[in-house]
Each structure stands twice: as C-alpha cells, then as structure tokens.
C-alpha cells in the first residue's frame, strides 16, 4: 500500500479551561492520500477545526495534543518543535481561513504580502518573486493582476480576497492544503467559483486538500473521502459516493436531510433537534443518542465503536443495520 501523505493516528487534543481539561478531539484517526481531497464535516463544536489546527500545531497556548501521532509525508511531526514547524508551514502545508475579509494585513499591499510569502520559502530575486506573484494572481482568476499587486486589501471584494489567500497558500506548491470553511463567508455565487478554482489548482500541483466544512453541497462537489465528526469523535468515514448513496450513521442522515432541496415538496426543512451536549465526555453511551431517532436502550449505556461495514466505510453506530434497511418509519 502506498504511504499516505498525512496519517493521523488516535489524535486526542484537549484545551485547558477554567472548568478543567476539555477534550475537543477524541481518538481521531484518518489518512489523507496524495492528491486526494478529504472533507471533514460536522456542525459547530464537533472538533473539525481543532483537528486541522492540531495538524498545523496552531492550537495556541491553552491547547495541546494529549496523545496520538501525526505522520506527515513519512515524518513524525507530533512533537516537532516550533522552528521545524515554521519550516513546514507555508512550505509543505498551507492553510486557508474562513474569513477572507480579515485574513490579509490591512497596511501592506497585496503584492507585498505575496512576495513575502514567496521569498520566505523559495530562493529567488525580488523581481522573479514579483513575476511569480503576478502569475499566481492570474492563475487564481484575478483580472489586472499587476494593478492588484499595488492595492490594499480593503479595495478588494470578499471573493477577490479569498482568491488572493488561495494564491498565497498555493504559491509554494504545498503538499497539503488545509481549507477551514474557505467559502462560508462568501456569497453563494462566488462559493462555487472559489471551490472549483481550488480543486483545479490543487489538481495541477498534486496538492492534497483537507477541507473543513459544514456544507454538504461543497463536500459533494469537492471531496473524494469524507469524515463525519460529532462531539469530537469520528462517527462515519466513507468515500463521497458511498456517503451520499447510503450513509450508515443517523447523524450523517440528519445532515443530509437538512440540506434545502431545489424541488418544492411542501415539507418543512428537516433539522436535527437539539445540539451537541455540553459535557459529552461524561456520557455513558453514544454521544448522539439523545438526538437520535433510532436510539435504543443500549445506545444510552454502551459506547459504540467505529466499525467497518464494507471496505473503507466505517460507522460508529449500533443500529446501522436498521439504517441500511431504510430506517424506521419516517
């Protein structure tokens, strides 16, 4: 088997808070293959962003990796020091943030920031870097690239800024791009454009994408492999086709049902009742049980394990067979 680009093994990340340790990512394992797009889906607070930040070692002073292993490109980066991580960041792994409106420095020109990103990881003259920057801006579909180089962030629209961010993230041809809800803050019309652009550029440079989102439309468009997270745990892993055709976890099913449909069928949009329980670590049974319509007595007292149903398709649910048969009466 080919070694994967990123291999996360039993990652557990916790934050120190006033109420003691809060485990936000609990025993999470997955792989990102070369050139593949992996989507991590889940609602707010499910631990998807923290998973990404753990990989980048960007947890801040209160967060830390409690246990587990991160293998990036064959190298164990779990305990890498800050200096070595700095070399890795931006060079081999990049990140795009959710808010393009604030992710660019307001007092430096776009060109300035791009050239800085280029010169940091590649040895070339300032002139070459400038040419590379203009080239990159054209690649992300910005017209009048030379002019934009001299402009400041405030004179660009949200979509244009996110394009600049993508240019900055991809300029060093990283092996892994972590995109944390890259289109959430953008207009719907621009979202699709940005997503397609991202996919196109990453295919060109064989960059793997770790896409963090709560938008299943984006997942369908982009992903090869999908991880569904709930309350810090992985509840389902599947390739994108399997996930959409026959998801075997009630949470995924709920997510899929709550996508607005283009066809007007007179029904109210479905939603999953309730929210992620606050102290989910203390629950005896399944963390989703109290919101699950399939929940049985067993679900409340026993913790389900991640179970492989078919090749590459895992689910953390006792009742997956009920789901496979078409579920209980809806």
């Amino acid at each position, binding site marked *: 088997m080919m070694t994967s680009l990123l291999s996360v093994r039993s990652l557990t990340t916790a934050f120190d808070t006033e109420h003691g340790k809060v485990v936000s990512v609990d025993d999470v394992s997955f792989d990102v293959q070369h050139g593949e797009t992996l989507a991590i889906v889940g609602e707010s607070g499910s631990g998807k962003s923290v998973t990404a930040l753990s990989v980048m070692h*960007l947890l801040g002073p209160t967060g830390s990796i409690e246990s587990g292993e991160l293998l990036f490109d064959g190298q164990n980066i779990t305990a890498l020091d800050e200096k070595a991580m700095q070399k890795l960041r931006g060079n081999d792994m990049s990140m795009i943030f959710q808010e393009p409106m604030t992710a660019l420095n307001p007092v430096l020109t776009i060109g300035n920031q791009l050239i800085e990103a280029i010169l940091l990881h590649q040895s070339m003259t300032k002139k070459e870097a400038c040419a590379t920057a203009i080239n990159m801006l054209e690649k992300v579909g910005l017209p009048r690239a030379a002019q934009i180089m001299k402009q400041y962030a405030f*004179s660009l629209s949200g979509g244009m800024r996110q394009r600049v961010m993508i240019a900055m993230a991809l300029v060093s041809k990283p092996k892994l791009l972590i995109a944390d809800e890259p289109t959430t803050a953008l207009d719907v019309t621009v979202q699709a454009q940005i997503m397609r652009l991202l996919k196109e550029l990453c295919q060109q440079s064989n960059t793997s994408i770790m896409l963090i989102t709560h938008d299943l439309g984006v997942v*369908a468009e982009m992903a090869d492999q999908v991880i569904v997270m709930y309350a810090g745990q992985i509840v389902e892993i599947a390739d994108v086709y399997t996930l959409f055709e026959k998801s075997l976890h009630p949470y995924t099913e709920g997510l899929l049902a709550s996508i607005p449909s*283009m066809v007007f069928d007179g029904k109210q949009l479905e939603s999953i009742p309730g929210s992620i329980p606050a102290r989910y670590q203390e629950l005896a049974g399944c963390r989703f049980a109290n919101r699950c319509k399939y929940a049985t007595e067993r679900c409340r007292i026993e913790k389900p394990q991640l179970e492989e149903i078919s090749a590459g398709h895992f689910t953390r649910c006792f009742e997956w067979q009920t789901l496979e048969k078409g579920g209980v009466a809806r």
Partner: protein
Amino acid sequence: MSLFKRYFNKKAYDAEKTVIWSEELPAPSKGLFLKRFKKHKLALFGFWFLVAVAICAIFAPLLAPYEQNEMSAQFSAAPSMEHWLGTDQVGRDVLSRLIYAARVSLMVGLFSIAIAAVIGTVLGLLAGYFGGIIDGIIMRITDVFMSFPYIIFILVVASIVGPGLTNIIIILGVLGWPSIARLVRGNVLALKQSDYVKASVALGYSTPRILFKHILPNTVAPILIYATSGVAGAILDEAALSFLGLGVQPPDASWGNMLSSAQSISILTDLPWLWIPAGLMILFTVLSVNYIGDALRDALDPRNTK
C-alpha cells in the same frame, strides 16, 4: 440519493472557466490623508509655523543677525532697528538667541520622544505578543516608572548626571517610554487575535517577522499620534528644567533659560522683551504640535469617514 446527483450534475452546467465580472476597484487613495489633514485649519497653521521654526533652527547661523553669544555695546536695550527684539543685560541680541534656541527645543522634542518611542514600542510589542511572564515583568516595570513623581524624579536625575542638552534628551527619553509601551501592548493584544496574524503564523513566518513587519505597521498610527503630544510635553519639560537651571546651561540659549531671566522682578516689569518672545515661542510651538496631533488622529483613523 437525488441530491447527490444534482450536485454532481451541476458541474456540467457551469464547467466554463470562472471569470470575475465587473468588480470595480477604487484606486488606493493617497490623497485622502492630506485631504482630511487639511480640514484642520489650525493644524495647517501649526504645521507651517513649525516648518518656519525648523527652518530658523536649521539655518540659524545664516538667519540670525548676530552670533548668539556676541555682545554689543548696548545693554538691556529696548527693541530697535538694530536689535529687533532688543538686547539682554550683557548686550546679546535677543532675536538671535531666540533663533538659536529653537534648535534646542526642537532637538529635545524630537530626539527624546524618538528614544521613548523606540524603547516603548519594542517593550510593548514583546509584552503584548508573548504575554505570560514577559508581559508581567515588563508591565510591572512600567507601573514602577509611571508611579514616580515625574518632575521631581527628572530634577534628581538631572542633578546627578549633570545638566546639559544631551543629558536632558536622554533623561526625557528614558522616562517617557512607559505610556507608549502600554499603548503598544494594548494594540498588540488586539492585533494578535486578528486573522491575518494567524494567517502569517500558518504561512510559516518567524516570530520577529510577524512582530515587526505585520503587527508593528498596524500600530504606527496610534504611536505617531501619541508621539506628537509627547513632543509638546518634552519641549515643555525642557523649558521647565532650563527655567530651574537644570537644563541647557548658559551661555547656550534655550527658550527655557531665556525665560528664567524673568525670575527677577525688575526684568519681569522693566525688560519684557527678554522673556515675552521666548514665552510666546514655547506657547505657539507647543500649541502647533498639539493641533497637528489632533489633525493626525482624525486623518489616520480609518473609521473616520468625514
């Protein structure tokens, strides 16, 4: 699942290359700063007044009618065609001394605040960015410095290291940094949370680079505004020290030590040309600097859309 197919089919509809349509780009407005600044008539007046003072200071040997310590035959003479602002008790030309003294005031104002700004900015950046113990230590030192009775402390230090222009500049500079450090620290605390600083970390930039290239430029405006009022304060402090005899030492002229001649009641009443011009110069210079500071604050504030 039909939904799944729809999302995938959608790709076929808009497979054509994405193009951004008319998104108008306003040109970066360099003129905006000047336009806002010019709205302040007083600041504009202050600016030109300071330019005039600066020219006088720089070209003092050319502009002054006499050498600053040159004595003439007339003692304590009233203003005349020969001596526009009269002469002092030892026959020196008051106008010439006033012009040379401008050098002292401007130098003290600019250099001492420059020293204070550098120390304050660096310490503020470090305290704000690293937080924790470093922040604690720096801020406690700041508190200590800020709780000294300022003018008395300056007096004590000045009497220990001795009076003189250079010493004054150093003393005022070394004592002036705490409020700038606090200002910068507060700004850094806010900026540290901003997405572009996080993005810089994610891009693999080193800490000094993030501090000085990405955070510092964003705090320049408040530092500049604070520094202007600091300049005014330093000029006043120098005048006060010189007035008390611990500043610039005669025979060198400074506006402060020219004023100190007004300590004698006979001069105060009989020879007003000895102290009124110096007093007015201090007044107008400090006023000008303060007006400029006001205008800078309005012009540099990005939220100000007037």
